[in-house]
């Protein structure tokens, strides 16, 4: 029987490149606290990094927020403001690679990931994958 802490969590930071690493540290620390598998933590780090980066590059706000809830079934992670738009060409390199958009990468990591309003929502179940 698991005994993770339950309840909400939230980290809000500036919409600046240096905050991307902070966001990864935050989600990795949360994942370790919850006892998530290392591979799941690595996937969360990448997904959060992509979402925070997309938020910064599209300059949708002066702040980026990672929030969510730890519940009996799993952990729900939200990142925003961000949208499912193509971010191709926004970063250095300017290479047209359709598979590099936020939605494609995040859904490759978490097939249940979805965009709700201006938030990317990822749910990680406590149940091991089938």
């Amino acid at each position, binding site marked *: 029987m698991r005994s993770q802490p339950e309840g909400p969590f939230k980290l809000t930071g500036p919409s600046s490149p240096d905050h*991307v*690493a902070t966001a990864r540290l935050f989600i990795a620390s949360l994942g370790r606290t919850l006892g998530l598998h290392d591979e799941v933590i690595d996937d969360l780090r990448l997904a959060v990094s992509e979402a925070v*980066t997309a938020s910064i590059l599209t300059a949708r706000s002066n702040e980026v927020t990672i929030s969510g809830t730890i519940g009996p079934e799993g952990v729900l992670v939200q990142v925003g403001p961000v949208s499912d738009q193509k971010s191709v060409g926004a*970063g*250095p390199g300017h290479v047209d690679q359709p598979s*590099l958009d936020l939605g494609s*990468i995040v859904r*490759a990591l978490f097939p249940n990931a979805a965009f709700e309003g201006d938030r990317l929502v990822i749910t990680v179940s406590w149940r091991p994958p089938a």
Partner: protein
Amino acid sequence: MTHLTIEQSESNGMCILTAVGEIDLASSPDLETRLSQCLGDGPVVVDLSSVSFIDSTGLRVLLAAHSGASDGGNPLGLVVTDGPVTKLLSITGVDGHLNIFRSVDAASSDA
């Protein structure tokens, strides 16, 4: 916050960049700068085997450098071992677009 170091060396006229740390929005401009400094002078190898994290920002830099290197006639080789770089290349499907090697020696032999 600096979380990427890039060391440069040369071997038989080839520029070798060894990246250690994390490549993201904050650090990828450093990689882009170092690549642009090397790419006009001959073959380039980027050793990514000690990169602990990379996202699409870094991958775009590598793809752009690969494209520029191909246009200039100087090959760009990437040294990648199992880990975060391999995973990102795999899930984005761009691994087939880049010159990937398992070691610096292998990349050097191919250059």
